[in-house]
């Protein structure tokens, strides 16, 4: 059953239809929030708030075929609100950054260590991006949304979205270069 049909069922009084929407979208919203904050607790909180708000506001959704963009908009706005509310606290509470980067002292024999640290640094580099670039990178790279969908979610022109992604990827490249991380680091399995 399509999302649009589930939305209409919910509006018709079938509250169980909303649980199907939750089951269908929970992982995606959780992953989005997790990549945004690098914290499973925050991701769970944002996910929960997103669906509560969606439950309360679903009647206001004008085009039922755009439920996906709509719920990403809610999640993104909640992430931004949370970032404003507790921005300073977050600077030191990322789960993904529990391991300090040691790539400069590691030897090639420590490939697995390098890989693990590389994964930590990946998230750290992502979190260092400006928020508007970070959101676009996450939505495009991990959520697989089209430029048009992202533009709709963020209420920005498509070219602005592409520009942010371009600058975001360039910023990540410079960060990786400064940390001596390259794609060979992740080849160790």
């Amino acid at each position, binding site marked *: 059953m399509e999302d649009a049909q589930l939305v209409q069922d919910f509006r018709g009084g079938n509250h169980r239809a909303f649980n199907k929407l939750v089951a269908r979208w*929970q992982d995606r919203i*959780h992953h989005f929030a997790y990549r945004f904050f690098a914290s499973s607790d925050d991701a769970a909180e944002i996910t*929960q708030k997103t669906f509560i708000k969606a439950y309360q506001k679903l009647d206001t959704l004008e085009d039922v075929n755009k439920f996906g963009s709509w719920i990403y908009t809610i999640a993104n706005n909640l992430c931004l609100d949370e970032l404003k509310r507790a921005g300073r606290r977050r600077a030191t509470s990322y789960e993904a950054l529990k391991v300090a980067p040691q790539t400069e002292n590691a030897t090639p024999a420590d490939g697995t260590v390098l890989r693990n640290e590389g994964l930590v640094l990946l998230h750290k580099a*992502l979190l260092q991006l400006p928020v508007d670039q970070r959101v676009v990178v996450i939505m495009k790279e991990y959520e697989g949304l089209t*430029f048009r969908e992202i533009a709709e979610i963020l209420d920005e022109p498509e070219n602005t979205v592409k520009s942010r*992604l371009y600058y975001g*990827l360039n910023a990540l490249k410079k960060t990786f270069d400064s940390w001596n991380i390259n794609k060979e680091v992740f080849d160790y399995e």
Partner: protein
Amino acid sequence: MNKETARLLFMDYLYDELEQDQRKELEAYLSHNPGLKKELDELGDVRSMLQHLPVQNPAEQLVMVEPERSGFQDWWNEMIESWLPASGFVRAGVAVASIFILFVVMGAFTNMNISINDNGFELAFGEQQEIVQQGFTAEQVEYLLQQMREENALMVSEAVQAVQQTQDEKLEQTLINFANYVEEQRRSDLRVISSGLTSMEETYYDRFRQTDQVLGELIQTVSTRN
């Protein structure tokens, strides 16, 4: 195509959202611009590295619990929803019709009577009592009016007389007061004149005595010298 336009297409190219002809055009341009090609490849490497970023699944499945039903309220809401049409306009019409029917039924039970007459709008409940006309005939009314006129004339006459008498009494009293005032004034003037004459008389007497005394002393002095 130049470098800037080529860079504008980088994101579409990397994420495979470029039209086929534009893709071929970009690739042809990049084949002659190794620096730009390297730049694109590096962005592609960043993409491939980002794909290694781990992610955590939610610990538990969220379930939105349907609000508990509250008995009569839910039953009533469901009944309303099932009976009333969805259109707001039609719902308003049904509501107006229901109120009108209720009004008519209640009116029938309470013997409501609505009327508009010379006195205005009247709303009454219960049995309407017949109004019985119990008044005077024209002759009786004329007789009563005549009596009232006579009584009024008598009352006016008595009132005028009373006022006249009061005014006479006040005028008489005023004249008496004026006469008393004039008499009093006259007596006061006489007292003043009498007092003045007495005072003048005493003054002349003193002067006579002083003159006699001076003359006596003068006579005595002249006699002594002689």
